[in-house]
């Protein structure tokens, strides 16, 4: 098995609303390996956002452990947490959350601002990321001049700015029309395949979830069911040990054998997009 990037052990989150206690998460366990593309589904109020916020270190569990990239983050003080958020996590939001008074490049540069990078390094990295999400030439445009899909691409580029261990996306397609939804999912899947980015996304949309490789069903604060997604077919298998290869890496992290590298077909997405 490849390296575990995220381990959630017995996480419980209780909100107190007046005299009533809301158990948003109860004794939840979860492991995500490096390079996995995971979807979390579940009915409204099942605790998806709560879980994602805890994984993203912007909320703390009532009890339990969260180990992110080998660091236990559940008990870290705020003075440490913001560095984890900056360096290990990339957030993608449902409503994009771009700063309206900054252009695309400046929005992407934001997470790098306090990271000791020079202005030039920040700028070229931001341009590189924007090119990766297909927005070359739109660097100096402000969000209001970009379409919803384009704005979410900028947000994804921003999430990638500090090469995080994991991308957390809460309903990233929730505000998008069908065509843009497909393109964003395709973009995320491609990032996962070509860059090996670990992605966890929360969605209500079964179609979107099916494009990932592993679908978790959340209900009443627990993972009740788990299912493979279509994306698994795009992943390479180690011809030697049968292990799923996280990236286009030439070497299997499990058995160390050299694999036959082939480009993923992505036919799946082309079909879907064409359907509309």
């Amino acid at each position, binding site marked *: 098995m490849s390296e575990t990037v995220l381990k959630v052990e017995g996480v419980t989150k209780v909100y107190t609303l007046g005299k009533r206690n809301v158990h948003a998460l109860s004794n939840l366990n979860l492991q995500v390996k490096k390079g996995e593309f995971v979807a979390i589904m579940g009915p409204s109020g099942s605790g998806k*956002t709560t879980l994602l*916020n805890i994984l*993203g270190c*912007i*909320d703390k569990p009532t009890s339990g452990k969260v180990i992110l990239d080998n660091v236990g983050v559940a008990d870290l003080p*705020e*003075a440490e947490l*913001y*560095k984890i*958020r*900056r*360096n290990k*996590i*990339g*957030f993608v*939001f449902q*409503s994009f*959350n771009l*700063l*309206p*008074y*900054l252009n695309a490049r*400046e929005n992407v*540069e*934001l*997470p790098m*601002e*306090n990271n000791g990078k020079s202005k030039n390094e920040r700028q070229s990295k931001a341009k590189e990321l924007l090119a990766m999400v297909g927005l070359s030439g739109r660097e100096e445009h402000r969000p209001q001049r970009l379409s919803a899909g384009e704005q979410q691409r900028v947000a994804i580029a*921003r*999430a990638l700015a*500090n090469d995080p261990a994991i991308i957390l996306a809460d309903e990233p397609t929730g505000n998008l029309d069908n065509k843009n939804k497909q393109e964003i999912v395709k973009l995320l899947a491609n990032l996962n395949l070509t860059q090996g980015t670990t992605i966890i996304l929360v969605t209500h949309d079964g179609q979107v979830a099916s494009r990932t490789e592993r679908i978790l069903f959340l209900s009443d604060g627990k993972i009740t069911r788990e299912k493979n997604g279509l994306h698994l077919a795009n992943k390479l298998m180690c011809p030697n040990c049968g292990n799923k290869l996280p990236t286009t890496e030439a070497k299997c992290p499990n058995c160390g054998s050299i694999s036959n590298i082939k480009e993923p077909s992505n036919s799946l997405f082309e079909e879907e997009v064409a359907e509309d």
Partner: protein
Amino acid sequence: MGVLSRAYRNISRRKIRALLVILALSFSMSILISIPAGITANQTATQNLTVNLSETIARTEASINQALTQIECSLTPSFEGFGFSPPPSGNFQRPENIADNFMPGQFGGGRVPGQFGGGPFGGRGNVAMNETLYTDIKSISGVAAVVPILEVSQGENQTIEMFGRSFTRMVPNYIIEGIPLTSLVDSYPILPTNITAGRNLQPGDSGVVLLSENNTRFFNAGVGDKIEILGQTFEVVGVYGSTGVSDVMTLYMNLTDAQTVTNNVGYITSLLVFTNDSSSVSDVAAALNSLHPELNVVTAQQRLDQLNDMRERYTAELQNAQTTLSQTQATALQEIVVVVAATSLIVLFVMLYTVRERTKEIGTLKAIGFSNRNILSQFVLEGIMLSAVAGVVGIAIGTIAAPFISSILIPTVNPIGNVVLRVGTGITPAVNVVTVDPQLMLMTFGASILLGMLGSLYPAWRASKIRPAEAMRYE
């Protein structure tokens, strides 16, 4: 894209709001710069007044000490017999050349033709005295010398516009002082001593004048020049310096010249009597009083007493001015406290509003790795930027409008932005214009930064404490 340009962009994003806030803040900043400017003017005026006062007192004291053996005699102008009443009795003869309706002893009387002013309102009456009537004074025992003096003012009536009204008053151009230029001037302090150009008058001089600095400007003449006085030409032999803060308009010439040129031959306006020593002054004064009861006899002692009275009165008024100053300072301090509070409250509420409005943005920034301190400094900086811009505008307004603004807020500043302080008539009033100096500008700018920081600290702290999970949930 630094925190600074982000702050700038955020402010310029809502232009109308920024404009209104900056306007309100610059208004209070212009008040903030005007109050100290007004107070400084008041302080300086009080200081100057103190200096003027002590100079005048010192000068008078010195001249009295110098003339301790001196007795001054003149006719008292009388208030009796308003109008055309006959002259009071006494061994007094009116000069032939005085018009009938200007009889001595009348209100405003004692005017010699060619002479203005004087009369009952002046210090010395300038009432014409027949020289020959007082030759007996010399024979009083203890008298060392008698110096007859003729003093005649020359001027013109002027109409002055002031606050929309017009006043007519006599403005003297110069005052002729006729002194007998005999050996007396060498032995007694009659002539000015501080000669600044040329020479002093000497025994035997005639057809020459000693001018004050004020006179040189009026006649536009200096040492060696010829000037015309009442149709007669005189040569300027010297100039004496002003003894105090006020301009001295007296020019000195030979008594005979003065009598001729002013058409007062045989007449004088006062007599200076010098005694052998200061101990005999009171005896001589008493003898003078019984010999010539119509004379107003003033000894140096009396003048010293008068001076002490004056000093007491002026000191009281000066204390008054200082009390007013400290009251004004207290008022100003209260006003400053109000303005400071108002300024920081404006910043506080504007920034609180901004923070509330941008909760989602703050949550996002924190979620993508901004520290509490990053957020705090972002908002403090925005507050400072707002108030610093307002500071610059306020300083610009204040530099122009400080006189006006401080006249509204500081009771001692008049509507044209002056602080005018006076004690009595003899002392030059202290006039100070409200001005804004570079140091005050710098301090006000510093204050604007400080107030921006003060006002935005709490909102920025609130911003830094925003929990991203909650900020996203309730967007």
